[in-house]
């Protein structure tokens, strides 16, 4: 179906400027990123580094000012079911139950009812929310809501899952558990994940590749493949070493500015 050597997502020298009160703000400058199918990539950087802008361009919510973003070789023209987004604030439909939130995409795409039902059931089970299938979002905890948001994207047969600081609003315990669950799902489904975070630990724990971005203007500072074996131990010396190197890269632009 697709040439396996072809990247699933290819971002080529993308620059994005926003017009803010008559001023041109460069959110992202000349960013290039090639993502292969099945990769888990984290984008990390301080606020204003353009990581969310890059994610939103891949999603199709924003169009590049110059350069191009491709999926399987064709330009990304707008948001679509192939690229599912998981938002930090969940963005669940509050008037739909867990089941109907997860079934929203399949229903929109006009799948037959029995297939929608079967798919939603499968993903409700995958994220462990069987007993909450008929609950409304406001009755769920933050962690459960984010599980629904993840299942909603998976049920829609997204090939790329884009996650914008998805665990940023959760408490530490819930975040850890969801990180584990996300890795389990990723392993089981061979999904491609692009995960935005500002937490160095999280970036290293999850990723095959860590892309460090720096602000002013937002650009890609480095792109590092991690060879660390999984499951990863946050307290191991190897982990610490990578963490130190990443932190140095994250703060490198401060040094440049001072010089």
């Amino acid at each position, binding site marked *: 179906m697709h040439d396996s050597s072809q990247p699933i997502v290819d971002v080529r020298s993308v620059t994005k400027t926003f017009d803010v009160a008559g001023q041109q703000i460069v959110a992202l400058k000349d960013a290039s990123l090639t993502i292969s199918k099945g990769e888990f990539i984290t984008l990390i950087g301080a606020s204003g580094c353009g990581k969310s802008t890059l994610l939103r361009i891949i*999603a*199709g*919510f924003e169009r590049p000012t110059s350069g191009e973003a491709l999926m399987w070789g064709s330009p990304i023209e*707008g*948001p*679509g*079911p192939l*690229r*599912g*987004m998981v*938002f930090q*604030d969940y*963005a*669940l*439909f*509050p*008037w*739909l*139950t867990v089941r109907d939130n997860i079934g*929203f*995409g399949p229903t*929109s*795409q006009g799948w037959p009812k029995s297939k929608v039902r079967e798919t939603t059931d499968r993903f409700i*089970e*995958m*994220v*462990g*929310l069987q*007993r*909450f299938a008929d609950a*409304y*979002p*406001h*009755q769920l*905890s933050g*962690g*459960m809501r984010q*599980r629904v948001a993840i299942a*909603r*994207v998976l049920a*829609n047969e997204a090939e790329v899952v884009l996650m914008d600081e998805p665990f940023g609003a959760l408490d530490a*315990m*819930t975040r850890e*558990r969801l990180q*584990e*669950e996300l890795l*389990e*799902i990723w392993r*089981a489904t061979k999904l491609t994940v692009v995960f935005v975070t500002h937490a160095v630990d999280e970036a290293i724990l999850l990723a095959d590749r860590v892309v460090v971005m720096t602000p002013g203007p937002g650009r890609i500072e480095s792109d590092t493949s991690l060879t660390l074996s999984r499951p990863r131990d946050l307290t191991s010396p190897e982990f610490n070493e990578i963490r130190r190197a990443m932190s140095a890269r994250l703060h490198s632009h401060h040094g440049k500015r001072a010089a």
Partner: protein
Amino acid sequence: MPYCVCLGGRMALVDMTAIPALKRQAQHSGEALARLRSTLLALFVPGMLIGLWQVATTQQWTRLIPTPWETAIYMVDFVVGGIHNDAFSATAHIHLLASLQRVYGGFALAAIAALTLGLLIGRVPLARQMLDPFLQVMRPIPVTAWLPLSMILFGLGARSAFALVFLGAFYPILLNTVLGVKSVDPKLLEAASMLGCRGNAQFTRVVLPAALPSIFTGLRLGLGLAWFVIVVGEMTGVPQGLGAVIMDGRTLSRTELVICGMIIIGIAGFISDLIVVAIGRRLLRWSPSHNA
């Protein structure tokens, strides 16, 4: 399936469903007491007012107002008859029905018009630019100020009352519909579009349900105002209706008739609001602010 690691989530489930059940058992006896207490508290102020009314009338601070007891007897006569047997005996249901028709007819018409316009103004910029300024200027004009014009346009009688009810209910429904449609969280529209829901489908599957709580608030306010306006509307010489009864009571110096009309309007408006709230609870049970 090896994917479920959400022990904490299940604990939360147990807590959430078990606690109300336990409470229900423990509080079964306490509940009746609490209900009695809240009923007594709610009756306190009306009771005091009736007491004051009783004192004021028996002490003859005024001669134009009947005592509560006399009013109660008139009320029975007005509703079931058999006491005074005058022109108004046993006619309450006729007047109530006439008013109900005008209130709900005018309200339904207002709801159709205001919902359509509100959805248009909230969604279509051209409609907003054309209609919003005009409606904003018309809005501060009180419904009562329309009375003379409406009598000229619609004549003396039921149609005029109908028109005033329509105007009274129209604005709250319109404004809340526009507000609801305009304040749909853009994140939800993004979420819908990345799930493959676009264009018109987005309107019915996202915008409408998201705006529903606000639309509902508008409908509730509109129905309240419809009851508010009906008395003015029925002052224009309609033969039947609770507003007409109040006007007749005034011209015939039958204050007890005025008070009976007022009480029936109060009760009817109250029940009508209860029904709307019950429908809302059912429709909006997903909304944390509507099912409290």
